């Protein structure tokens, strides 16, 4: 669905943010883009919906170059949820906020009404329908931003650092929600530092460092490779750290989440009994 061909991008300040990146994201994939601050993650995903155009190379969305389509048109296909919801919200009520893009896309009022109700319900925001987004908490504002993007039903959703500022419960809700969206066939791209969150979701991980992709594969492979994690300024998940310290006792090192760890240890204890 998204095809990135050897793109380069330099900001007007002279910072070379992308130095030759190639990547293919298929329909319905769930991808986490990780790497240290300044690695080029956000710059890369801003190319997916045409917010940025590459200086060299090209980006194809459903086989069409982002150079040949307007951002407004691309946005129908690829919805972008910003890191800071305040960069995105401006309407007087939550309801208007969600309806805004739908009006711009020229939907009929009856459809808009239906979609708004659906999106409010989906993200548990129905009680805030008539509330100003700025009266809501940070976590709620993030959900409004997400609702306003999902309302127009894009094929792909990009979420930039969705877990920042969310408490444990909210993060768990977000995780279930993302998994559900992906399960319904949406392509989901998450930019994140949150190693534990990725370990729980187990998506495909694209690891970036200094404007380049340095690894691409299963979360389980990448998060447990300490050479890679160090390059990308990531700390392996806590469960992995535990298992890395026990390899000499015959335990595997590629374990990222609690339920998997439990199973392995229980089997191990069971065997030891016999």
């Amino acid at each position, binding site marked *: 669905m998204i095809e990135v061909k050897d793109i380069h991008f330099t900001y007007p300040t002279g910072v070379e943010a992308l130095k030759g990146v190639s990547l293919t994201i298929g329909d319905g994939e769930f991808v986490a883009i990780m790497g240290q601050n300044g690695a080029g993650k956000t710059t890369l995903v801003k190319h997916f919906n045409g917010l940025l155009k590459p200086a060299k190379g090209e980006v194809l969305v459903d086989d069409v170059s982002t150079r040949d389509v307007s951002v407004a048109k691309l946005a129908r296909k690829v919805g972008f949820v910003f890191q800071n919801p305040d960069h995105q919200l401006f309407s007087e009520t939550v309801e208007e906020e969600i309806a805004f893009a739908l009006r711009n896309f020229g939907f009929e009022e009856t459809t808009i009404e239906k979609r708004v109700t659906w999106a409010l319900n989906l993200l548990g925001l129905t009680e805030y329908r008539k509330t100003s987004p700025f009266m809501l*908490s940070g*976590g709620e504002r993030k959900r409004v931003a997400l609702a306003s993007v999902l309302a127009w039903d894009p094929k792909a959703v990009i979420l930039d650092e969705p877990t920042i500022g969310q*408490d*444990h419960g909210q993060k768990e809700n977000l995780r279930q929600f993302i998994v559900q969206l992906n399960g319904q066939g949406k392509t989901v791209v998450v930019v994140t530092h949150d190693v534990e969150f990725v370990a729980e979701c187990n998506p495909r991980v694209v690891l970036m460092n200094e404007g380049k992709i340095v690894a691409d594969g299963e979360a389980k492979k990448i998060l447990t490779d300490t050479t890679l994690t160090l390059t990308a300024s990531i700390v392996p998940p806590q469960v992995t750290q*535990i298992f890395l310290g026990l390899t000499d006792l015959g*335990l595997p090192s590629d374990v990222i989440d609690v339920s998997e760890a439990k199973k392995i240890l229980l089997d191990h204890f069971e065997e030891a009994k016999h």
Partner: protein
Amino acid sequence: MAVIETKDLAYTYPGGTKPSLRDVSLTIEKGEFVILTGPSGCGKTTLCRCFNGLIPHFYGGVLQGELSVAGLKVSDHPIYEMAKRVGLVFQNPENQLFALSVEKDVAFGLENLGTPRDEMKKRVEWALQMTGIEELRERAPHELSGGQQQRVAIASVLAMQPEIMIFDEPTSFLDPLGAQKIFEVINELKNKLGVTVILVEHRLDLASKYADHVIIMDEGKIVLDGEPREIFNSETAWLLGVGIPKAVRLWHTLQENGVVLEGAPVSSEEATRFLREVLKR
């Protein structure tokens, strides 16, 4: 020796219909590393605003009960007096930094307090050294990485030599390695200088091993207050949905499945050590 003491503290924001803090009684000892956590909206930030006098002096509202910080009754001392004793470092360093060079940013608070020039130079030097950013002194803060910026923000608060430093989710915008380094810097301040550290945090996996004391709040009240080991293993903390470290979670699932384990780890290092003992049996 207690450095913060509250008794039956209650607070309602101006125009608020219900109190944001209720029945808050706590004691924080000098030199402790305290983690303050709880669900969004539980009152953590409000409580920290009481500690540095923003409540009631800036926010107004109704404050009841007793509140003593660094030996001062907060309601009797203006913000600038409290600021010398209680430093606050925010989530996003970009909101805190604005000068053209790191050195100037670190000196800013001292200039405002009217510190003599020689003393100021000494303190800036010391703060840069303590946070490991001497080589960045001439750089423009906005050109630095997130982790470096957060160190500058810490240095600029540290230069005022507060007895108490409050960190409000100081690593949310940092990559994990950057976050780990910041927690190490904070821990050094506690160990070398005896600064009392209050860390407001949701993500406990990285920070829990440094804590001496954990306080969990919910709906404006303190629901748990004690040592990390005891708190992370209490049923209340689990029910509240606090971000219990994965090492603790693993330990619990194993116990629930009938594995006999002793002790209760609070970090991955401890869990590895404890598990090693069990596996060798």
